[in-house]
């Protein structure tokens, strides 16, 4: 008879198709499709049909040839993620222009009163001014007007230009003054205010405006005012040019946002942690209360919203009341959010501290009977609900060459990181941890400031390279690869993703080291942390060193670096860990589906 094992997962539905003749099993093909609807709901049927069609096509069969479907008793785990920013920089009244045009003009530090270039002729001898040049003024005219002012004895100390022509103006002037150009919203520059323009020598960064005391010296600030200017100085560090303007009411604040608290309930004790204490404090509360009974967040904050949202989703799926749904695990990670400075003029960004959170709920049982009935009706094949997902995954993982019991698996998924351990006599202990692939995406998205979710997924999946010439790229490991055909000029000198179908340029403000760092750290903070947490909870006596073999399965085990990071860390505990190779052909995929087929025959 022909049996299909069907694993309905959070993001993919996988099928293992096999011909069973007594004790003899021959696997014919595998199929895969996206899961339709939330796992454990009747909407899953479409995804199951697609995955089955995929498998039978490869085996030259039709769906009608299948005699029996075995689906897993899915562990209903739902997880979700949220971000809570802790700080925010606000500039009330425009006070700074801190952007980094590639080619500012002139060099030096200039202090004066801001004045539109049209009013320069009205200035008197000895007046110290900073000229504001809008885009409708040609660079030649601008230079002429400023030179006229010089000859009248007006002290033009610096200039702020809207177009990219700082160098063109500077080279036509009789004196060398600093010019910051490409200020897009020049109309927002306040007129008649004391301003300071600084342009550093090529190869250097500004010194005065990136130093709080430097700004204090320029504007004669009091100690209290100097404190307030710190965020401005901080945002300007590393720039080659900058402008700071003092407006009478101008005020910059680094505001602390009330981030809310997280209440973590255990069997014996309850902890209340302020989110702003950071990830470490939250995780030590989670670990010391484990196993969690429930968690709650302050209503009206992102934490509160996150927890309410997860509970409602689970309530919908299981038909229970959301007050009966309890949070089983929380993962908190410290991160930085790239945020636009509120009140900046030239689209300045600042990095704000934030905490990313993943939470997970587990209900007693998902209504898989309903799914099974629906499949029988719509596809017309007999359906059996087989054993627990974790057991099936281990049976499947054992088909990886070089493994034996006792064996632990790490299932690296999209929503949760799961671990299970099977002892020599077949007892299984399993655990689910909040936080997996989707949380990595969230960290990449916020730290790099990228909105496009497909690009974020690609940054996670592909290594980066830098296009060094029209014919060569430098890879992450420092090696250079040459091409016979010239590369697309759009990729020239850019950091690109190394996709199978060619190079995909990233936004120009991202440099290679930053992308690599953010990507690796996100993966490490989520998967390495969770691998250790999960394994120590299934390990004999809670001692991770007593585990010998770990097989990694699941979608994120296909990643080009996550399994290596985990193997490397686990090697320190004397554990043999690696990516699974189900049935010696499937790689880390299809473990549960394979287990579902094998378990039927083992029981006989």
């Amino acid at each position: 008879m022909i049996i299909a094992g069907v694993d309905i997962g959070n993001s993919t539905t996988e099928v293992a198709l096999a011909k069973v003749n007594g004790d003899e099993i021959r696997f014919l093909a595998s199929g895969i499709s996206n899961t339709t609807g939330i796992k454990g709901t009747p909407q899953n049927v479409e995804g199951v049909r697609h995955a089955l069609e995929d498998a039978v096509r490869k085996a030259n069969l039709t769906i009608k040839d299948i005699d029996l479907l075995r689906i897993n008793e899915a562990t209903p785990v739902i997880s979700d993620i949220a971000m809570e920013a802790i700080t925010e920089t606000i500039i009330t009244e425009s006070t700074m222009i801190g952007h980094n045009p590639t080619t500012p003009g002139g060099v030096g530090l200039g202090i004066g009163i801001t004045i539109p270039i049209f009013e320069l002729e009205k200035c008197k001898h000895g007046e110290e001014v900073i000229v504001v040049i809008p885009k409708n003024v040609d660079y030649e005219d601008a230079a002429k007007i400023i030179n006229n002012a010089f000859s009248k004895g007006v002290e033009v100390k610096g200039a702020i230009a809207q177009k990219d022509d700082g160098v063109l103006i500077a080279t036509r002037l009789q004196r060398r003054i600093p010019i910051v150009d490409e200020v897009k919203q020049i109309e927002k520059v306040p007129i008649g205010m004391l301003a300071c323009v600084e342009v550093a020598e090529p190869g250097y960064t500004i010194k005065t405006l990136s130093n709080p005391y430097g700004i204090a010296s320029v504007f004669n600030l009091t100690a209290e005012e100097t404190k307030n200017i710190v965020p401005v100085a901080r945002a300007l560090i590393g720039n080659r040019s900058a402008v700071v303007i003092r407006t009478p009411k101008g005020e910059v604040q680094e505001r602390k946002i009330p981030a809310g608290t997280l209440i973590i309930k255990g069997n014996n004790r309850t902890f209340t942690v302020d989110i702003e204490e950071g990830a470490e404090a939250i995780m030590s509360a989670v670990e010391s209360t484990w196993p969690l009974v429930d968690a709650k967040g302050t209503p009206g904050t992102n934490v509160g919203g996150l927890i309410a949202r997860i509970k409602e989703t689970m309530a919908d799926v299981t038909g229970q009341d959301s007050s009966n749904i309890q949070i089983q695990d929380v993962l908190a990670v410290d991160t930085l959010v790239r945020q636009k400075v509120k009140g900046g003029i030239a689209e300045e960004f600042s990095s704000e501290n934030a905490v990313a959170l993943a939470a997970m709920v587990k209900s007693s049982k998902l209504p898989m009977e309903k799914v099974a009935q629906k499949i029988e009706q719509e596809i017309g094949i007999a359906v059996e609900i087989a054993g627990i997902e974790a057991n099936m995954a281990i049976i499947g993982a054992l088909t990886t060459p070089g493994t034996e019991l006792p064996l632990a698996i790490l299932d690296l998924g999209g929503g949760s990181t799961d671990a299970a351990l099977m002892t020599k006599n077949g007892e299984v202990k399993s655990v689910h941890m909040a936080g997996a692939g989707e949380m990595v995406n969230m960290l990449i998205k916020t730290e790099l400031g990228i909105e496009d979710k497909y690009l974020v997924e690609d940054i996670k999946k592909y290594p980066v390279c830098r296009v060094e010439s029209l014919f060569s790229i430098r890879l992450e490991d420092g090696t250079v690869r040459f091409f016979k055909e010239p590369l697309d000029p759009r990729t020239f000198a850019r950091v690109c993703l190394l996709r199978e179908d060619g190079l995909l340029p990233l936004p120009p403000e991202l440099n290679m080291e930053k992308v690599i760092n953010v990507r690796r750290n996100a993966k490490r903070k989520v998967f390495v942390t969770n691998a250790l947490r999960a394994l120590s909870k299934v390990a004999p006596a809670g001692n991770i060193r007593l585990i010998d073999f770990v097989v990694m399965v699941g979608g994120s085990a296909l990643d080009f670096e996550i399994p290596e990071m985990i193997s490397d860390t686990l090697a320190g505990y004397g554990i043999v860990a690696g990516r699974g190779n189900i049935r010696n052909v499937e790689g880390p995929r299809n473990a549960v589906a394979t287990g579902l087929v094998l378990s039927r025959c083992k029981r006989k």
Partner: protein
Amino acid sequence: MSKDEIKKPVVLIYCDTIEGTNIYLKKICEGLEEEGVPFQIQQVEKVEDSVEVLAQNASRNSNLGIGIGVLKNGDCALLQRRLPPNLPIQTLRGEKYDPNLYRNIGINAARLAKNLPLVFA
């Protein structure tokens, strides 16, 4: 022209006539000057082929390996020494004159020399 001049690292701009291409040259040179890359304009005696071939000749004689060709009809091309004429970095056709595009080609020639990402409007 002496040999010393050719040896200087410059972006070479070849045109069929300096007077006839003045409006384009001005914008191209603005782009190069703003980016701070030296350049040199030369009038070529006869132009038989396309503006791309003109640009390729310029790039081959440029010490930076970067050449621009401009014709009096406004056609303009940017090429790098190792590129074939049918794969220019950027080309402009003279039918409609947009000064910003000519400045942009100057900026890109400079950025090619500085190994910085190019800008495409």
